[in-house]
Each structure stands twice: as structure tokens, then as C-alpha cells.
């Protein structure tokens, strides 16, 4: 009976229990609560204050998805993902391969790529503001080629600049994942490829890329999830989703609605839609990655 419930090794249940509880309290409960809020008329109240929270079906979803600002925010985050995810995968793989070789100052470069990842966004955002202001370093170098309006106040350029910023900031972490994966690619495969006359590019395509495919799946998944939850960067770089709302994201609007405006029910509806979209995109990406490997 015990083994039927707890499996052949009950101690395993004991050892995993703390993490299961953690998952339950920090992820499962909030997710379940958010889904519940999204179909009820809900706002936060003081303990002991009883107010009715009637079931409203899909009304909150209707309110959210008929708001042009919400729809635009999904488009903005889509643009962000289209730029950020491929750039992240390609750059982190190429740089990891380079850093895996016996190059000079390898340790310095490894640390240098990792530093932005561990530095607070507020600090590095100030540097990017300095670079991309209308009178910033980038425009001074570009001279007459500088865009007008400038990068962060241009509806066209604001989101791509944010995507570049996030790519640069997170690159160190993804390089680290690829570096770990590269250690598992057998050296013999490179030697065989070399004997067969493969050059550096051919070895990269035929040995390295397939060899790190599981890491690529992880990088894709993490880049999509963190990208879809974009909040801090537009909050800091474009003054809360500017110019004229061109860099708002679903999470930024959830913050405005749920925390500032006391409408957590509508914010939750946006959150539920976002979770579903991320799951669909992540699943599609995984299938694509798997079909390539087979």
C-alpha cells in the first residue's frame, strides 16, 4: 500500500517534499489564484473586510482584450521576442564557442560577458540612457546619420533598442549554459570531421550545433519566458513604456492595472493570456527544435 502511494523509495518523497511545498506555495497557488481572480470581480481588501467577488465569466478577458493598449502591448512584446530570442541564441552560441577555445584573455572575456548579467538593471540602464540619448555617445558618433526622433523616443526604434539591451545584459548567462554544453561534445567528433575534410564552419554546423541542441532548447525556452515577462527595461529606459506607449508590455500594464489602479482581476486576465501564449510559443519552438534534431 505504502509503495503504491509513495513508490518504491518513500525517502524520495520526503527529500522532494520541501521543493514540492515551495512550488505549491510560490507557483501553483499564485497561478491558481490568478486564474480564479481573472473570472471574478476582484480587488484586494484589508483582512476582515468582506466584499462580494461575483463570478463574471470572461468579462475581464473581454475588457482586457478589447483595450487597444493591451493588444498593442502584445504586439510590442512580439517584436521584442523576434529580435531578442534569435539574437540571444546565435550570439551566445558563437561567443561560447569562441570562449571555449584557447584564446588570450579568455578568463577576462568570460567575466566581462557575465558582469552585465549580475549588475543591477537600474545601473546598466543609466549607461544605456547615456549612450542612446539624443545627445548621447551613439548619436555623436553617427552625426547626421542619427535618427530623429532619437532612439528611445522613436516609436520605431524604442523596442529594438530595449531588445538589444536585454540581449546584451543576459548574454553572459546564456554563454555559460552553452559553455557547459560544449564540454559534453566529444572531441572525437571534431577529429573525425577534420579527417573527413570539414572546415571550421562545417564542423560548427555539423558537430557543434547538433551537439548543443539540448542546451539550445533550454536557451530558447528561458529567453522566451524572460522576454515575455519584460518589465524593468521599458520601465527604466523609456519612462514606463514610452514614447506614446510604443514600448508598453503586458507585464507593465499588469503592474499599472493590478498594483497602481486596484484592478487585479483584469491584470490577472492579461496574465492568464500571457501564460497561454508563452506556453504555445514555447511548445512550438520545442517541436521545431526537435524536428530539426530528428
Amino acid at each position, binding site marked *: 500500500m505504502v509503495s503504491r502511494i509513495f513508490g518504491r523509495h518513500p525517502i524520495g518523497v520526503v527529500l522532494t517534499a520541501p521543493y*514540492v511545498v515551495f512550488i505549491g506555495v510560490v507557483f501553483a*497557488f499564485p497561478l491558481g489564484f490568478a486564474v480564479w481572480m481573472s473570472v471574478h470581480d476582484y480587488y484586494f481588501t484589508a483582512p476582515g473586510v468582506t466584499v462580494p467577488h461575483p463570478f463574471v465569466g470572461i468579462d475581464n478577458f473581454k475588457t482586457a482584450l478589447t483595450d487597444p493598449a493591451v493588444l498593442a502591448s502584445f504586439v510590442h512584446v512580439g517584436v521584442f521576442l523576434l529580435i531578442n530570442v534569435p539574437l540571444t541564441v546565435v550570439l551566445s552560441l558563437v561567443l561560447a564557442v569562441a570562449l571555449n577555445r584557447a584564446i588570450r584573455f579568455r578568463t577576462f572575456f568570460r567575466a566581462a560577458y557575465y558582469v552585465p548579467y549580475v549588475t543591477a538593471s537600474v545601473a546598466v540602464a543609466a549607461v544605456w540612457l547615456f549612450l542612446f540619448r539624443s545627445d548621447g555617445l551613439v548619436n555623436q558618433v553617427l552625426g547626421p546619420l542619427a535618427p530623429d526622433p532619437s532612439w528611445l523616443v522613436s*516609436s520605431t526604434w524604442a523596442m529594438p533598442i530595449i531588445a538589444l539591451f536585454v540581449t546584451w545584459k543576459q548574454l553572459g548567462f546564456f554563454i555559460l549554459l552553452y559553455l557547459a554544453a560544449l564540454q559534453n561534445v566529444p572531441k572525437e567528433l571534431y577529429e573525425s570531421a577534420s579527417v573527413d575534410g570539414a572546415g571550421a564552419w562545417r564542423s560548427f554546423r555539423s558537430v557543434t550545433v547538433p551537439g548543443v541542441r539540448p542546451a539550445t532548447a533550454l536557451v530558447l525556452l528561458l529567453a522566451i519566458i524572460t522576454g515575455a515577462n519584460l518589465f524593468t527595461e521599458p520601465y527604466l529606459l523609456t519612462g514606463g513604456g*514610452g*514614447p*506614446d506607449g510604443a514600448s508598453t508590455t503586458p507585464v507593465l500594464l499588469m503592474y499599472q492595472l493590478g498594483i497602481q*489602479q*486596484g484592478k487585479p482581476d483584469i491584470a490577472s486576465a492579461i496574465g492568464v493570456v500571457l501564460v497561454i501564449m508563452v506556453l504555445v510559443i514555447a511548445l512550438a519552438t520545442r517541436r521545431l527544435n526537435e524536428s530539426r534534431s530528428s
Partner: protein
Amino acid sequence: MKTSSRNRTRGLAATLLAAALVVTACGSDSGGGGSEAAAARGPITIWYSNNAQEVAWGKQVVDAWNKAHPDEQVTAQEIPAGKSSEEVIGAAITAGTEPCLIYNTAPAAVPGFQKQGGLVNLNSFADGASYIEERSGDTAQQYKSPDGNYYQLPWKSNPVMVFYNKKMMTEAGVDAEKPPLATYQEFLDTAKKLVDSKAAQYAIYPAPSSEFYQSWFDFYPLFAAATGGKQLVADGKSQFAGPEGFAVADFWKQMYTDKLSGNETYTGDSFADGKSAMAIVGPWAIAAYKDKVDWGVVPVPTADGMPADQIHTFSDAKNVGMYVSCTKQATAWDFMKFSTSKEQDGQLLTLSGQMPLRTDLPAAYPEYFKANPQYTLFAEQAARTVEVPNVPNSVEIWQTFRDAWTSSVIFGKADVQQSLTDAAAKVDGLAGQS
């Protein structure tokens, strides 16, 4: 093997779901409030703002109280860090962890806190309404909630005015003692001189970002002045989509179009950094810019100019709220009155330069204003301040307005009148909700 693994996975998922539902169902039911709390006395906790001057004021008022009330000790701490005080307070109300009193309650947040059931109705104290109205006079009416009760004690204001850099004015060939800034046209001409002469990169640089409260420091002071003291919303109707509101918007749009104001986020203090020649600020700026800028101050401009003693402006007030978790509300109410007494208001004025929301300030503290004449203008201005409207959905109303403003005025992407008219229609709907 595969089936048993699947069963275990299902079991785990079911356990997690059940746990989630159980935790969801188990809402906390603690908290103070009720008639017992209203009459109870004993130790209480308060929060105050974290700026150095207010901390100094807070410490001395608590020390003074504690010496005289050994059985009703007050413990004070700075408001915990967060993106904004309002978010920290909102979260604390939900969790039931807020203190008895918070000396940093923003009037715009009060409707939300009230809806949460987080604030104590001060009219429930026998002398609640009379104390507030005697201390603050007619100004107190702006802080009444739609149900006619006070859920906040009007504490202090920071009436905003236009600070200017005298050195930059001189460099631009403008009379630094009497710069022409009274009308919109004068302001635009002076701003153009400042920028064309390269005395400053921008004439004035209000934050162009999208946060709901930023309109309090560009549109709202000028709108208050233009309308002789109208609020954004009155009697459930928006007031800004009219000739005065459009004129204010057109003025600012001209400032942005001519690049006399910047539309990029600036992380520093543009006025202190010499990036702009003017700033819209409250009396706190006197101490802040004392050693950095040789400044002068004038009232905000109006379309055709107006005598200074008739100009209204935004109050930028912060008030005191009593929160429902407080189990010793009688002590909290007494401490509220003690900390807003004439003596303690004088201390606040001396230590922070901020204006207590009490009637006829210059007459109440003549010695202070004689010794600090630069504060007199602000004290006189404090008698003509306009607060944010105390209406339902206050923050959403301001965000709606801000979105229309950034789109049409700051970035010129939409027609100003159309944009403000559309925003007004939405605001009317929001203000009419309960």
C-alpha cells in the same frame, strides 16, 4: 511502469491543485478595527517619509510624545522601500501589516485605500471633522471623500511654483530679478531666448514619462491657475476638456515642438544639473538647491497674466491616514492631533520648509517667515492650492489623462483637443463608478 509514473504525476498535480485551493479558501481574518479598537489606548506604530528633514521632524515629535505618555509609547519607522509609498501601503493593507498612522499618505491613493477598507473614518471620532476643519479651514473640503467623511487628515502641502536659474537668465539677456514669465507668450519667448542663447539645453524639463502622477507637475498647476482653482474632476465630470485645458495643452505642446522642453527620460535632476533653466517645484526645493543654484521663483504662468495673489496651483500635499489594523485608535487619534498641533506644525515648517495645511500660515508663524522670507511666497501660495480630486478610480483617471497627454502634447502623435476630449469621455465614465 509508464502507467504508474503517469499516475504519480497525476497524483502530484492533484495534490498541488488541492493545496492551492485550500490555501485560496483560507483567507486571513485578522485585523483590528471595530468599536473596541476605537476606544482603546496603548502603544502604537507609525510610518513616516524617508527624507532626512521629515525623519528629523518625526523623531522629535515621537520623543516629545513618548516623554509625556509612558503608557502609550509610539514606535516610528521610515516607510519601507518600494517602487512607491502607495504600493507599499496598498500591499500592507492587504496583508494587515500596516501601522496605525502613515505620515505620507498621498491624496490620490486615498480612494483606493478606502475601497480596500484600509482607512479609518476620522469622522467616527467625536472631534474628528471639527478638528480637521478648524485647522485647515476651507481647504479641508478638498480632502473629503464622496461619502462626506474624512479618511485622511490634511497635513502639509508643497504648493508648486516656477524656480528659475538667475545665472542662466542673465546669460540669455533676460532680467534675472523680474524675468517675463507671467503669460504663456512671455514664457515661450523667455524659454526661446534661454535655448537660442545656449544658456541652457532646455528651458524647463518636466518629466516626460508615462507615470500617472507626472501630470501634477506640468499640466495641473497651470490648469489650476487658468481656471481659478478647478480640479481635474468635479461632480463626477471631467473639467479639463475645455478652453482653459486646451490652452494649457497648446502651451506645453509648443514647448515640446520647439524643443524648449525635453521629451526624453532624464534620470538626474535636470535643474540642479544645469540641463534646464527652470523647474516646477515646491518649497522643498529651497533647501535642496541652496548651494547648487542661484535661484528665483515666480508663480506658474497663465494665458494673459494674473496678479500673483490670485494664482492657484497644485498643492502636492501629503496627509496622515489612520489604518484599520490599528487596535489602539484612541491613542492614534490623540497622537494625530498632537503631531499636527500649532507647535508641531511649526517644527515641521522649521525643519523641512514644507507648509502645514493650516489656515493663514504667515500670520501663524510670523517670526519664521521674517527670518526666512524666501518661504513667504510659498506660504501665501499655500492659501490657493488645488488638490487631486477625491473620486473613485483616481489613479486610473490620472493614467488615462497622462496617456492622452504624452500622446498628443509630448510626442505630437495625436490632435490635442481630440485626445483630451476622448480622455474626458473615459474619465467621466470612471468618475461616475462607485
